[in-house]
Every structure is written in structure tokens, then in C-alpha cells.
């Protein structure tokens, strides 16, 4: 094919994306070297002072980062296990197959913040149905939103509800695209369903699984909507994630310069760690 045509296809999209993003990225880097805050709202140059502050004097950011890692990794693992189980269950013939498939997909179609508003009333400690129903069977009210440990699990429950369908969708689409021959061969050999899963289904699904896990990790690392509405990072800082901490620094305390430093550092860490996770997963799950 002619040499030039390919650029006509690629460039509009590429340049629109770069055009929209170039300013924010350069601006963030420049801003991170300034001391812009509510007292001096100007683009002065203070070198790497902000970065020194971040690496030597800001445990709260690193705590929020580890909290984020814990929350996103644990939700994605749960989503993967449950999503895979559900996908396997409605993969082959089962009664009301299509009905269950639709039901399992619904949460990902709903707006996270809006559903979280509902979840907040759902988990309300005195007026919500969960504690009321638990009370009926004699369990004391649980502090879903005001206990620092339990609040983390409440966030996980809501995230799993919201996003397991996405995992389910990717994995079910993968299962439905698998070739039939390996399963026939296994059936002829008389393999049990368990062995079929371990030796046929799971290895065939490995590339799809890795893709799905990485995509979900990327999305999960942005946990923000849920936390914002459900707990506002609280109680204290118990559910504060990196995004939320950056939000507080930047748009509540107006330390724009420092918030940009946090943003840029966060991005670098995320890109590096996601690349490593992708490599490790590939090594673990795909064997010769």
C-alpha cells in the first residue's frame, strides 16, 4: 500500500490526543517545580524543594499510596476470582442463562458515584437496612463507615459490586472465543471437570486473564468516586487513597505546586509498577 495513506488514518486521533494532553503534562511538570499556593498564586521557580518535601517529610502520601495498593490489589483479586467463577457458571448451558448474564452485567453500567450514594444509605449505621437486618438475627450494629478497619472493607464491597461485572464480561467473552478441540480431547481422555479446568481452560485463558487483570488494575488504581462519596477518606485518613490525597492538597488546600509534585510522582510510580506487574503476571501465568 501507498506509504502516505497510513498517516492520514493515524494522525488525526494521535494529534488530537497529544494536542489535548501536551499542555496538562508540561504544565504539571512545571507546576511541580513551583511553590504555587493560596498565599503566592504564581508560577515561581523553587527547584526540587517540593520533591524533597515529598520524599523526606510526607508520610501521609506514602501511607495513602500503600492503602491504595492494598485496596486496588485486593479488589482486583476478588473481582478476578468471583468474575471467573461467574463466567464459568454461565458459560455452558444453565437455566435462565441469559437472564443471569444480564443481571451480572448490570452494576458496571451504573454510575459509581450515584450507586455509592445509595450504598451510603444502605450501610447507614442506624437507618440503613444492613444493620437493621443483622439486628433482627441478633448481631450488634456494625460501624460500616466510622470504624477505620471496617470502612476499608465497605469500600472493597462497593468496588467489588461495581466492577466484578467488567471482569466477568472480559472473561466470559474470552471463554466464548476459546477453540473447541482441546475440550473434546480432554473429554475423550476422560478428564474430570476439575482437571479440565486446571489443564485446559485455565492455561487457554491465561493471556485473556492477564489482559483483564491489568485493565482492572489500571481502573482500580483510580478509586476515587467511591471513597469521595462513601467515606470522604475517613474516618481520619483510614480510606484516603492517593487520588484523594492529591485532591485535598490541590483543590482544598490550594497547594497547587505540591499537588502537581504528588501527581507527577504518582504517575511515574504507577507506570513503572504496572509494567512490572504485567511482566510478573505473564511469567507466572503463561508456562511453556
Amino acid at each position: 500500500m501507498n506509504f502516505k495513506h497510513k498517516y492520514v488514518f493515524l494522525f488525526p486521533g494521535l494529534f488530537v490526543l497529544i494536542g489535548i494532553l501536551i499542555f496538562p503534562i508540561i504544565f504539571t511538570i512545571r507546576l511541580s517545580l513551583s511553590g504555587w499556593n493560596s498565599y503566592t498564586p504564581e508560577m515561581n521557580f523553587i527547584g526540587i524543594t517540593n520533591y524533597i518535601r515529598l520524599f523526606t517529610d510526607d508520610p501521609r502520601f506514602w501511607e495513602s499510596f500503600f492503602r491504595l495498593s492494598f485496596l486496588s490489589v485486593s479488589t482486583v483479586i476478588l473481582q478476578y476470582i468471583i468474575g471467573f467463577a461467574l463466567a464459568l457458571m454461565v458459560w455452558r448451558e444453565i437455566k435462565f442463562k441469559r437472564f443471569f448474564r444480564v443481571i451480572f452485567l448490570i452494576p458496571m453500567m451504573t454510575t459509581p458515584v450515584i450507586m455509592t450514594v445509595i450504598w451510603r444509605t444502605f450501610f447507614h449505621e442506624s437507618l440503613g437496612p444492613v444493620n437493621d437486618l443483622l439486628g433482627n438475627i441478633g448481631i450488634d450494629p456494625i460501624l460500616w463507615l466510622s470504624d477505620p478497619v471496617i470502612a476499608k472493607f465497605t469500600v472493597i464491597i462497593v468496588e467489588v459490586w461495581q466492577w466484578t461485572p467488567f471482569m466477568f464480561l472480559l472473561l466470559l467473552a474470552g471463554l466464548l472465543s476459546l477453540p473447541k478441540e482441546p475440550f473434546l480431547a480432554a473429554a475423550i481422555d476422560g478428564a474430570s471437570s476439575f482437571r479440565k479446568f486446571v489443564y485446559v481452560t485455565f492455561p487457554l485463558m491465561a493471556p485473556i486473564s492477564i489482559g483483564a487483570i491489568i485493565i482492572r488494575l489500571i481502573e482500580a488504581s483510580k478509586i476515587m468516586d467511591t471513597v469521595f462519596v462513601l467515606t470522604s477518606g475517613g474516618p481520619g485518613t483510614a480510606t484516603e487513597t492517593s487520588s484523594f490525597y492529591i485532591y485535598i492538597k490541590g483543590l482544598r488546600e490550594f497547594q497547587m505546586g505540591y499537588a502537581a509534585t504528588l501527581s507527577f510522582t504518582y504517575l511515574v510510580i504507577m507506570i513503572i509498577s504496572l509494567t512490572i506487574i504485567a511482566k510478573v503476571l505473564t511469567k507466572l501465568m503463561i508456562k511453556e
Partner: protein
Amino acid sequence: MEKLYKFLKYTFIILWTVFIVAPFLWAVSTSFKDFQSVNSKVTYIPWLDFEPTLEGWRVLVKSPARGGVDIVEPYFNSIFVTCTASLISIILGTLAAYALSRFTFKAGFVRNNDITFFFISQRIMPPIVLSIPFFIFLSTIGLLDSLLGLVVVYIVLLMPIAVWIMVDFFNRVPKELDETALIDGCNPYQAFYKVVLPNSIPGLIVAGMFCIIFGWIDFFFAFILTFTEVQLLPVKVVALNSSITPWWSLSASALISVAPLIIVAFVVERYLSKGNLSGALK
């Protein structure tokens, strides 16, 4: 053994279904309550536990001046922003995906996969990282608090999704298809438009649905980049979530906001069952 497995399977499916449906049922019930039935004790079933009223729903169409919430305008704003941004993203994303799937690009150490990764990697950025510079960027060009400004921002959000789905999809459309068209005397654009595109409808629909979902459910950009002139639906609903929350109108507005996309679940399922989706999602 087989029986036990079957029993466990159905138990799990039913428990999960209950878990998924529970917040919806709660919201439906709450939307018909009044102050008394929300705040005295926990109530569930209308008529039996409490006297249902339509107040929560009526408030939604009243203007704010008369004590209402008025979600009609935010509703149309949301539809407009989501659809416009999705359409632009799909067009640009599909063209780029076609290029990345059919031609080889080389620039220094950059190859096709790197360009694809560049597109997709934009999803890594959390909204907060982008929203501060976007805030300043949009206020400089005067698009802060406007529909157009949001569309621009949402393109960044949605184009990666379109590229991700369409590259995979085009990789599965046989190359012979375009080659035959070229031999028959089409130029590359005609080959793309007349032959490849009509064969990519399932992929386009899936990509379109994903763009619409991820556009519709965004909250944070709309929250930071708009104030009073323009309001999107999620922002409007969350604004109801103040300290003295009117749970009834909150539930009613929540239900009416998530309703349109639930139809998408049926469409996705249909494509899934027909086997069209498997090619489009890897």
C-alpha cells in the same frame, strides 16, 4: 459429588444475584418514602411498612425556585456530552486503530505496539492529575464551565477505549478483505469505508457502548470543571447528598440516572450470546 457441585453453583449464583439487586430494591423502596418513614425506623415494603408517596419523584421535575431539584437539564447535558465525545472518540479512534492494525510504523525505537500502548496508557492517569491543569487550561481558553470544554476532556477519557477495542477487532478482520478491495480498484480510503467498515459493525457497537458507559459514569471531571452554568447528572445527584439528605429524592434521581444504561446490559448480552463480542473483546 456432581450434585453437591450443582447445589453450590446455584447457591452462589442466587446469592450473587441478591447482592447485585439489593441496592436497587432498597433505592426503589426508599424513593417512595417520606421523612417519617426514613427517619423513624428502617422500613422496607410499601403499604405494609410505610405509606408510599410520590414526593421523591415529583421534586425531580420541579424548578429549584419552587423547592425542586430539576434534573431534566443535567440529564440532557449528560446525554449531549457523552454522545458527542463518544462519537468523536469512535471516529478518530477507529481510524487510528485501523492504521495501527494494517500498516507498520517506525520512528526511532517506536513501533506499532508502542503507539497503541501510548493511546491505552492514557487511562492510567487518575482524573485528579489531569483535572488541575485542565482547570487552568480551560479557563485560559474560556471553556471552563461549558459543555464544549467537557467534550474536549472526555475525548481523552474515551479515545483510548475506542483504540483498545478496535485494534483488537481489526486484527481479527482478515487482511485479504482490504487487499481484494484494493485489487478491484478502490483507493485505501474507499477500501476502508466500503469494505472494512461494514464488516466491523459489531466491533464499532461494542466500542461505542464502552465509550458511552465510561463517559456517562464519569463524575470527577464534571465535578471539578463545571459549576453553575452547566451541570451533569452525577454532579447534580451527588449534590443532593448533603448532611440532611432527602433520601427519597436522592433515590429517585439515582434510579432515573442509571436507568438508561441498564438497557446497554441487554445489548451487550445479546452480542455476547451471538458470539460477536468474543472477537471484539480479547
